């Protein structure tokens, strides 16, 4: 079967500044693929190369088995895309825009379009310039799904959506996958898409670091744990456990990071009276920490601190 997306050594420089470097990625058909990375990592650059909006400095890319440059129109007939910074023609109403985009596409499943409008609770009679960010995003989602494309490329599609619509969106993606179609979603937040994706690729500073299934990724990830005990516990009992790092004990609370399995830590903790255990959500940054080891972790930590500042 033809891969939905395939890039080989795809590289893009904007003058001297880095876009992406040597990205070789395969997305198999019928999957929901998450493309993760912090802001500025090169997610949108990769996507805009796939759509032939920008041209590579090196390497090449194929979408649905076709060359992105030579066969752009044939690809565009079978692919939907929602850009990260979604801008639509503000002077049109939602319905006018959907009509226009449907005409440009050449085919629309009209009954399905109406179902989507209903499901996403979109008022198609309002002018787009008067819509909130979330409602604009809904128009984008209807436009993307209404043609039942073989491949959906969605750049940060969940930003600005309320939780209810987020659920509908996930449902639409799962339905697409059930029909054998492929969904490629970029995000800078793993928790938003981890339960949706079959596999994720992580991009950082323009390079694809890894492509893994979610369970493997999480196994490699660092997890922050906090355990409350009934009485103070000796820190040294926990410090040398496999995969456990950064142990601190503050009165009765133990804090540490665990890479991979938490089994050894939990078994050791069970020797004492445990009152509660808290696992702090694994952030993308912490997954990077897991991937890079201590040296790079320091860099990543600094970057995170920088972003916070």
């Amino acid at each position: 079967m033809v891969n939905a997306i395939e890039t080989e050594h795809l590289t893009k420089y904007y003058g001297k500044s880095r876009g992406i470097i040597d990205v070789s990625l395969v997305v198999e058909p019928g999957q929901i693929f998450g493309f993760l990375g912090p802001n500025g990592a090169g997610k949108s650059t990769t996507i805009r190369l796939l759509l032939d909006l920008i041209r590579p400095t090196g390497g090449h890319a194929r979408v649905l088995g076709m060359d992105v440059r030579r066969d752009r129109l044939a690809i565009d007939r079978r692919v939907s895309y929602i850009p990260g910074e979604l801008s639509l023609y503000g002077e049109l109403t939602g319905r006018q825009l959907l009509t226009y985009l449907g005409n440009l596409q050449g085919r629309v499943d009209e009954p399905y379009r109406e179902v989507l409008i209903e499901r996403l609770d979109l008022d198609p009679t309002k002018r787009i310039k008067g819509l909130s960010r979330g409602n604009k995003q809904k128009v984008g989602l209807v436009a993307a799904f209404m043609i039942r494309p073989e491949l959906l490329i969605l750049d940060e599609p969940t930003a600005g959506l309320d939780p209810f619509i987020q659920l509908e969106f996930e449902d639409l993606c799962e339905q697409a996958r059930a029909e054998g179609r492929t969904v490629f979603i970029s995000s800078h937040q793993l928790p938003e898409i981890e339960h949706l994706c079959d596999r994720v690729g992580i991009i950082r500073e323009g390079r694809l670091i890894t492509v893994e299934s979610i369970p493997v990724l999480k196994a490699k990830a660092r997890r922050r744990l906090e355990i409350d005990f009934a009485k103070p516990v000796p820190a040294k009992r926990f410090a040398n456990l496999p995969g456990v790092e950064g142990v601190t004990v503050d009165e009765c609370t133990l804090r540490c990071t665990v890479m991979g399995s938490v089994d050894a830590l939990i078994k050791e903790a069970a020797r004492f009276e445990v009152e509660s255990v808290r696992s702090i959500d694994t952030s993308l940054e912490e997954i990077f920490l897991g991937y890079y080891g201590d040296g790079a972790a320091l860099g990543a930590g600094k970057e995170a601190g920088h972003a916070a500042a």
Partner: protein
Amino acid sequence: MLLRNVFGKTIRDLRWPTFWVAFSLAIGGGYFTALYPTYVKAFDLESMMEKFPDTLKALIGGSDWDLSNATGFLNIELFPLILPALLAGFAIALCSGFTAGEESRGTIDVLLSYPVPRWRMVMEKVAALVVSMVLIAIAMLAGIQVGAVISNSPVDLDKVSAGLFLATLLSLDFGLMALALAAWRGNRGAAAGIPIGLMVVMYLVQSLSPQIETLRAVNPLSLFHYYLGHNALKNGLDLGDTAVLAVVVVVFFVASLVLFERRDLAA
């Protein structure tokens, strides 16, 4: 119905700007034609202009004027500068936004993720502009004719049409220059500013070259030379001049297509 393709959408976008420019120029053309008899009598324009220094005469249409009829009056009042400046300004404002406007607003990513070739997007927008400019020219011609009937001062419609045709071509030259610049760099400000600046320079070169020797050598580079050189309102269309203005339109149009096709689009 207009939302079938890029051409229709552009016509829809241009409907109000086209209406207002057409309306204003129809009123303006009608006004000048209707008031021609009054102006000529009230100010004794002909003898007043005789007394102007040559440089000033050159700036308002050269020495080749004829105020014995309304066509000649329009030839001094509207056609040398005001009309082409307004029409070219309109064309430049629109053309500089055709690609660069979509880029700066960010709508280009959505539009070109549909099966629309880049060349086709540019071509359909230019086609819509041409329709808009033809409608404006027709409206102005109608306004002039109404003015002529009101004041009972007939105009030579063939000659006025020839002048309007040349003014439209000249405006498309500057408009498509803006389009080519925008297609090349994606910077709307520069794409609009450079043609406007060149238009002023070219106008001055054409107007002042009879008086200034050195300008005469570069005057063939001025598009106004081909617009004003043979005095279309007096002598009708000159085939060579028309061809030059038309070729420039084609050159900038093809350049726009090629340059836009090759470029990374702004995010």
